[in-house]
């Protein structure tokens, strides 16, 4: 770019400046841009058609031009408000210094196309096994990461649900965009940031409900992959269940309300307390139980021992007959005239055998 030097000041002519910018722009690569077609202007005597591509999320505009013959050959019959993908590169219209996007191709991209594209992506990711992740959630996460938009109500709902159920819960909140074109990358960064905290054991992605458009970032392939590849399990917490963005499928668990999310990531403190008190009560009774059980066993053994002792039998009227110190069990062990010793329950006596019976 030639400039005229006025002392230490370098000055360009408008034409030179525009040419320089145009040249610089021409080195940029061709890309696809998506937006709504508005203000379509086409006239037979013009060499080009013009339209404005509008970003439906924030109204950003881009002037587009396309050679009329190429445009006509596409036979698109585009009308204002239709969604399109435009392939082209930036260009400066030198004589006027107007910046434009020079379209090389235009494709209609309606809701149907959108759904079809999502469906293709879904099949592709499913084939990779990205939607089969359902890792167990920690019962006692040391810290819980929460990714939420700056919507105060949604954030409060999740925080309240978690801290009510489990007051000692420790949370790290990452506020980020959850809608619009920057949402996907912002959420990916938030996931990475939370994963970088050593004791974060689970992440809740509170995305809220919304229109098909609002939820688009949650079907962004990069985000879906980031969720599936996350170091810790991710719970996708949503307002509505009718749409299922791909992120939900890649998450380890889904929660339809903040309280369901809370139930998934923290234990119920009241239940824990009750269980502890129960354990303690049983613990206190248990040693007694041990002593009683041992006492009962001892008593039972003692009872059996007593039942087996000969004295008890003698007390019931039986007698023990001994001959020469040995117990006489049958009549063949003695003969008439043998002296025997008879032991009774109380006392005893000596006797002589008179006659024998078989």
């Amino acid at each position, binding site marked *: 770019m030639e400039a005229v030097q006025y002392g230490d000041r370098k000055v360009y002519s408008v034409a030179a400046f525009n040419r320089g910018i145009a040249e610089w722009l021409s080195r940029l690569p061709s890309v696809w841009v998506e937006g709504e077609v508005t203000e379509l202007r086409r006239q037979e005597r013009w060499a080009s058609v013009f339209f404005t591509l509008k970003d439906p999320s924030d109204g950003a505009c881009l002037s587009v031009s396309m050679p009329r013959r190429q445009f006509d050959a596409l036979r698109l019959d585009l009308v204002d408000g239709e969604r399109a993908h435009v392939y082209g590169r930036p260009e400066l219209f030198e004589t006027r210094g107007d910046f434009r996007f020079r379209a090389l191709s235009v494709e209609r991209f309606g809701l149907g196309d959108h759904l079809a594209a999502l469906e293709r992506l879904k099949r592709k990711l499913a084939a990779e096994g990205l939607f089969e992740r359902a890792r167990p959630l920690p*019962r*006692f996460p040391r810290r819980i990461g929460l990714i939420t938009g700056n919507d105060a109500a949604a954030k409060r709902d999740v*925080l309240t649900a978690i*801290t009510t159920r*489990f*007051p*000692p*819960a*420790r*949370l*790290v*909140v*990452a*506020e*980020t*965009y959850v809608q619009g074109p*920057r949402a996907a*990358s*912002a959420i990916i*960064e*938030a996931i990475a*940031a*939370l994963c970088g*905290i050593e004791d974060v054991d689970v992440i809740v992605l509170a995305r809220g409900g919304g229109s098909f458009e609002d939820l688009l970032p949650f079907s962004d392939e990069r985000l879906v992959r980031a969720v599936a590849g996350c170091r810790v399990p991710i719970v996708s917490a949503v307002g509505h269940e009718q749409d299922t963005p791909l992120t939900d499928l890649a998450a380890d668990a889904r929660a339809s309300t903040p309280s369901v999310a809370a139930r998934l990531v923290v234990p119920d*403190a009241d239940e*824990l*307390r009750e*269980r*502890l008190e129960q*354990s*303690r009560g*049983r*613990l206190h009774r*248990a*040693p007694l*139980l*041990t*002593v009683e*059980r*041992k006492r009962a066993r001892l008593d039972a053994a003692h009872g059996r021992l007593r039942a087996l002792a000969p004295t008890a039998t003698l007390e019931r009227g039986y007698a023990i007959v001994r001959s020469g110190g040995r117990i006489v069990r049958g009549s063949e062990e003695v003969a008439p005239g043998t002296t025997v010793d008879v032991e009774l329950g109380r006392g005893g006596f000596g006797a002589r055998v008179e006659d024998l019976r078989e």
Partner: protein
Amino acid sequence: MTFEDAQKELEQIVHKLETGQADLDDAIRLWERGEELYRLCVGRLESAQGTIETLNPAEPA
């Protein structure tokens, strides 16, 4: 020791004592350990103050 581990051990001790798997000397020792675990768990529940920090992720490019 985590809350979860402490609670699990406490419940194992209770079971052991209730089913009479421990002899009398062990029972006393287990009882003391159980009491200690109970206090640890309750302490964790009652004293631990929940925290909510806010992370400021780098501004998206």
